[in-house]
């Protein structure tokens, strides 16, 4: 039991009705979130008093919304029902969980098979009259943005549930999005918006330092977090991701110390050791290209066996010879305008006036707009001119086109019914096609209109 004073927003004088000891435990578990917790507690008031019908808590991911609410409700032992809307694919599951948490199993069992909102409110009122609330009941709905897509009236009913069931009840909606996206057409009761601001860099440092490894000093861990934040803070401020990255890379950071090559105070050496490692982590583990298990295994192996194969590397399939040329032809057909085909693919095209090919403003660069659809005939025409040898138009060529569609390297744009004039689009990136054309010694850049 620590004897440190409670932070001002959580002092017992501000929140009569809750014991000091419990408030102290709450304060210990919520670093950097005392102001928000204090605000929420003051809105909740004493347990037997009424509170607002609905409070809308919003903030970025991992800004502590569910955590603060859950800690408050559990430590202060208030009757509550915490439901994640991601688990409730139908409204019936939501009703069942609410009744189960607030009134017990037999209340949930009285719900009919396909309960409507009317049934839910009726059963709630019935049980409320049998067990009236001495303390405010709380219904906490996490990921509340999913409520918008559920039953049409569900959100409107939930924000005014206190009035409909005539009970001392408060609904807390937690979400990452702002309330403007939730509002129904004809309006509804406006909840009180409560913002949970993002953590500052210093606060992130403070929270991440709490996870320190017991066998190393706090200073070492603090300098490690400092380095980690220096690299990742510009890209990601999500506390969960940063904790994950911190946990994965700490052993690598401590390697020089454990092997005796450096002391704990040699920050520069440790930094030089870990910095390329963290940069690689940004391209792999951060992007979930590699799982954390593979990452840890990789760290134990000293020598590198080549570039790290992430998930995206597996999309580079080995294609047969003509398929490669078909793909190249498709790329050229997608990204070159049809009128320029003559210039690129006909041997003696004569003099073409330069004015026709003046680049206009950058927006018309096809690489910014995306691939355009092309008919099959154009694809074959380009294909025959790109492939050096004479190719007979056999079924094997056409079946290769279908297999490219199955591999999702081409997408079929026209309707499946249209058999005589199918249209396709090329769905590969510039890097991929450059890699493919290098394997067949084809200089694709020369044939692209945007790079003239």
């Amino acid at each position: 039991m620590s004897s440190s004073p409670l932070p001002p927003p959580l002092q017992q004088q501000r929140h009569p009705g809750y014991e000091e000891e419990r408030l102290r435990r709450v304060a210990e578990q919520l670093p950097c979130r005392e102001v928000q917790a204090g605000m929420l507690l003051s809105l909740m008031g004493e347990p037997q008093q009424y509170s607002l019908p609905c409070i809308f808590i919003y903030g970025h991911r991992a800004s502590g919304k569910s955590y603060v609410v859950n800690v408050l409700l559990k430590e202060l032992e208030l009757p509550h029902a915490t439901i994640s809307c991601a688990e409730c694919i139908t409204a019936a599951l939501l009703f069942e969980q609410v009744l189960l948490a607030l009134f017990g199993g037999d209340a949930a069992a009285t719900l009919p098979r396909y309960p409507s909102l009317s049934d839910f409110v009726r059963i709630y009122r019935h049980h409320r009259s049998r067990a009236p609330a001495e303390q405010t009941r709380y219904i906490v709905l996490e990921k509340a943005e999913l409520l918008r897509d559920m039953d049409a009236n569900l959100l409107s009913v939930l924000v005014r549930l206190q009035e409909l069931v005539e009970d001392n009840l408060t609904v807390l909606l937690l979400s990452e999005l702002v309330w403007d996206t939730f509002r129904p057409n004809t309006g509804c009761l406006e909840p009180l918006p409560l913002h949970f601001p993002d953590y500052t860099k210093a606060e992130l440092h403070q929270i991440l330092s709490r996870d320190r490894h017991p066998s190393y000093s706090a200073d070492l861990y603090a300098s490690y977090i400092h380095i980690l934040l220096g690299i990742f803070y510009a890209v990601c401020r999500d506390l969960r991701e940063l904790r994950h990255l911190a946990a994965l890379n700490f052993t690598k950071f401590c390697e020089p110390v454990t092997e005796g090559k450096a002391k704990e105070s040699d920050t520069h050496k440790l930094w030089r050791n870990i910095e390329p490692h963290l940069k690689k982590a940004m391209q792999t583990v951060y992007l979930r290209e590699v799982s954390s298990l593979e990452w840890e295994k990789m760290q134990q192996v000293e020598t590198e066996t080549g570039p790290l194969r992430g998930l995206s590397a597996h999309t580079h399939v080995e294609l047969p010879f003509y398929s490669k040329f078909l793909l190249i032809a498709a790329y050229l057909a997608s990204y070159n305008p049809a009128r320029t085909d003559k210039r690129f693919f006909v041997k003696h095209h004569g003099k073409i006036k330069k004015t026709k090919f003046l680049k206009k403003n950058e927006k018309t660069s096809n690489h910014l707009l995306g691939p355009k659809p092309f008919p099959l005939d154009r694809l074959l025409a380009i294909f025959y001119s790109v492939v050096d040898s004479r190719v007979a138009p056999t079924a094997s060529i056409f079946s290769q086109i279908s297999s490219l569609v199955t591999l999702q390297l081409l997408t079929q744009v026209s309707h499946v019914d249209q058999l005589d004039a199918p249209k396709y689009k090329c769905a590969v990136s510039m890097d991929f096609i450059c890699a493919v054309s290098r394997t067949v010694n084809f200089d694709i850049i020369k044939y692209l209109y945007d790079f003239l």
Partner: protein
Amino acid sequence: MDVPYPAKSFQSRVIMSKRKAKGASKPIGECISQLQKCLRERLCHNRIPSQLEASEAQHKHLLGLLQRTANNGESNSVLIIGPRGSGKTALLKCVLRDLLQEKEVQKNLLQVHLNGLLQTDDRIALKEITRQLNLENVVGDKVFGSFAENLVFLLEALKKGDRSTTRPVLFVLDEFDLFAHHKNQTLLYNLLDVSQSAQAPVAVVGLTCRLDVLELLEKRVKSRFSHRQIHLLSTLSFTQYLEQVASQLSLPDDFPDREFALDWNSSMRRFCEDKSVEGILQRHFNSSKDFCSLHMLLMLCLSRISTVNPTIKPADILEASRLCFSDAKSNMLHGLSILELCLVIAMKHLNDVYEGEPFNFQMVHNEFKKFLQRKSSSVYNFEQPVVMKAFEHLQQLELIRPVDGSSAKTQREYQLMNLALDSSQIIEALHKYPQCPTDIKQWGMSAFG
């Protein structure tokens, strides 16, 4: 956010209750507790006030109507129309409370309360009517041919002892416009039919927030409706609004501690007369006159009251007003990472140059790369997948939204999007952004990308 209060040595509530036995007046902790309880019931739970000053005429009209149904057996239908938060439910509850003071009415009148949000189907509505009239046993397992038969059966079953006339029934339909979306509007048709055909004394009161509700009704339903409408458009002037604020914050006469109540009421009067407070209330009055937003503002002030801070000061209402008017999207922009902020600025420039036409990821990335190439920027040149992840995060936050269209066939990088932010919001966010590098700030503020 929270102003630090000086540490005063007020007793905690546990010690308070021991002191209670000493003096005649209650200790301050308990007074504050009672105050909170009373005001919270008024502001959060919408306890019915003793009289509604703003809608005297409407009150009289509705009360007269319902009295005629209850006493004289006359059937009536009326619609109460007003925007959200204008006091429709409060008016109805007030009228019902006054109506039920007569003993005869209390004995005879039956009430059925339906809500368009809950009873989404006519079948469900009928079951609810049966249940509220306590006729479930009477109906039993009977199967009815049509809705009308069912309803007539229910009303017949309500005949009084001497079988001469049916008891008067009051049907209250909350969210009336939602009932108009049911199939064939059967419920509305039958209820209004009964109210016209003098079979049983029935009063149908509908509450709705839509002014055009009559357009939603079918012709046969509209013809059976009496076209009686009570409008609750708020005609409050600013002085009346101020009086409302003062009356909402003052304690009633039956408060346990008279002295405390008098002190409190006089301090509230002084508070409402303060110039800065008037200015804040004027701002709220200009944006919306309804009671819901007023209650939210007062609730935020009330939540700060405790033994440490036993009265509402102008600073409290200033803080509460700031919370009410804060822009949610700007708050969210504050928490974006530098990379995401750069992408938002790139999108702003694309919108400026191409006048709001939708963009895709490649265009945004291209714009961002142009910024990186320009001067020695402080932002590292991230790889494309990392930038894509930042872009997708912005999409998850619904700051950018895909244009309607077939998104299945286009690649992720080329899907067209629109930005759901205004230039002014972005510029304001840049000012408030913590430790924003100067070159990014300048890039954002400049007019030409």
